């Protein structure tokens, strides 16, 4: 394993080094020590490299990730894995707001809880949360899956377009145009696959599924007053 020390090497050197790996990163394993809550660590990686961040990080960690497998051994600040395209980001602790925001692909696993707006405007990312999520999670979600093994806060899936939301615990309230859906065998299979790939142990039959009622989906001239 190759080791980088953020307190010595600095953020730009670390991100440049990891960014330069390209396809050569496929068999490489790097560690970043002393992250000290700094922002934008391991952002924009395009290499299938494995990265372990040993400590708590600040905002936008692992943002725009493509192909890399990044594990944070600690807490993450706002916007972890925001706009992720592909790859795998795993958080061993809790996450702040907007985890996985606008993500297009890849798998984000948070072993602890996330704060509000988890998966806001998600566009294809899969997010699996071992704990609970805060209010306005999956706000304006467009595609992908959000799995919550604990509870969901107020206004889950507000103004949702598409995306499947699976929640095992209580949902404080559903947002506008979000409704409970049937949990058919295909959904249980999908959920089991997500849990397996996330290495999170839970029985998919204990979850309920939520999604778009599609009433806000198209502009309706007869409902102008409601908009």
């Amino acid at each position, binding site marked *: 394993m190759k080791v980088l020390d953020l307190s010595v090497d600095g953020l730009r050197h670390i991100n440049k080094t990891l960014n330069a790996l390209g396809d050569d990163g496929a068999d490489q394993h790097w560690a970043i020590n002393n992250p*000290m*809550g*700094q*922002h934008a660590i391991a952002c924009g990686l395009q290499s299938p490299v494995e990265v372990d961040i040993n*400590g*708590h*990080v*600040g*905002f936008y960690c692992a943002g725009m990730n493509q192909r890399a497998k990044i594990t944070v051994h*600690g*807490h993450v*600040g*706002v916007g972890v894995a925001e706009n992720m395209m592909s790859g795998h980001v795993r958080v061993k*602790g*809790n996450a*702040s*707001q907007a985890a996985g925001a606008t993500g297009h692909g890849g798998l984000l696993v948070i072993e*602890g*809880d996330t*704060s*509000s707006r988890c998966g806001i405007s998600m566009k294809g990312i899969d997010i699996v949360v071992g704990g609970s999520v*805060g*209010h306005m999670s999956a706000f304006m979600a467009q595609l992908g899956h959000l799995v919550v093994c604990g509870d969901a*806060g107020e206004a889950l899936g507000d103004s949702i377009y598409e995306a499947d939301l699976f929640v095992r615990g209580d949902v404080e309230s559903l947002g506008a145009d979000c409704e409970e859906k049937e949990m058919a065998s295909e959904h249980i299979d999908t959920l089991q696959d997500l849990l397996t790939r996330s290495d999170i142990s839970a029985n998919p039959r204990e979850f309920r599924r939520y999604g778009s009622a599609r009433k806000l989906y198209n502009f309706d001239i007869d409902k102008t007053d409601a908009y």
Partner: protein
Amino acid sequence: MCGIVGLYLKNEQLRTQLGALFRPMLSEMKSRGPDSAGVAIYRNATSSGQTKFSLATDDPSYDWKQIDVGLESALNCDASINPIDTHCILVTNGPEIDVRKWLKRNQNAVRVVGSGSSVEIFKEVGLPDQVFDRFQLDAAAGTHMIGHTRMATESAVTTAGSHPFATGADLCLVHNGSLSNHHRLRENLRKEGLEFQTENDTEVAAAYMTWKIREGHSLRQTLEQAIDDLDGFYTFCVGTRDGFAVLRDPIACKHAVLAETEDWVAMATEYRAIATLPDALHAEIWEPKPQTIYAWGDSA
């Protein structure tokens, strides 16, 4: 923007290092608030019957000796002063209400920025490290501190508009955010007899809390009512005699993080302000929920 930080030391052995542990916390929030900085430190509790005042002036030539000599002869009381740069800590056994009246009538250049038995408030325009140096806080010992670095949005960059704002005996407030109903609220509070030194929105929140506590509400009741009465964005940290309390507005878009170990409890706008505390790597770290009161210490 703005950055807020709070630190309570559970481990008594760390309390001699309070200032040294707190400095990097405040300093790390420089980029969130370079306009002014301020702290409240809880230390050196007074004896029974005494009140400690934190005083500030904008007049660099002001002679603080006028205070203790003047008070002793006017109120027939004991008074001692400890001037530090633009601030002065006054300890007296004169009745608090009479001391305030005397200061208002006789010392126009002086503002009372805090009072109680142990709180001391220091705040100035400038970067947090400069403020920390000016008030000689590196060697400060005590149980807990809260602090603020300000990026001014709602009112002028002045010492008077800097945080923390006092909200009662040994109580003070730091705020990240902006309130939207502070004009109306200020007018209502003026009718209740509260006075204002600035156009600052946080001063209104502090006056609101002062009023509620004066009316007999506990700090917890006050904060619960603030959720209904204050509009806008806020993460508040309230310093109390024996700890601090944290409250976020219902939308919670202003950042906040809490961390706790066996030795300390800390809050900050961003975790990086907490990262330098001893064994922060193994702290329990989480984001406080909206409209939920988190409090450490009995008086909350």
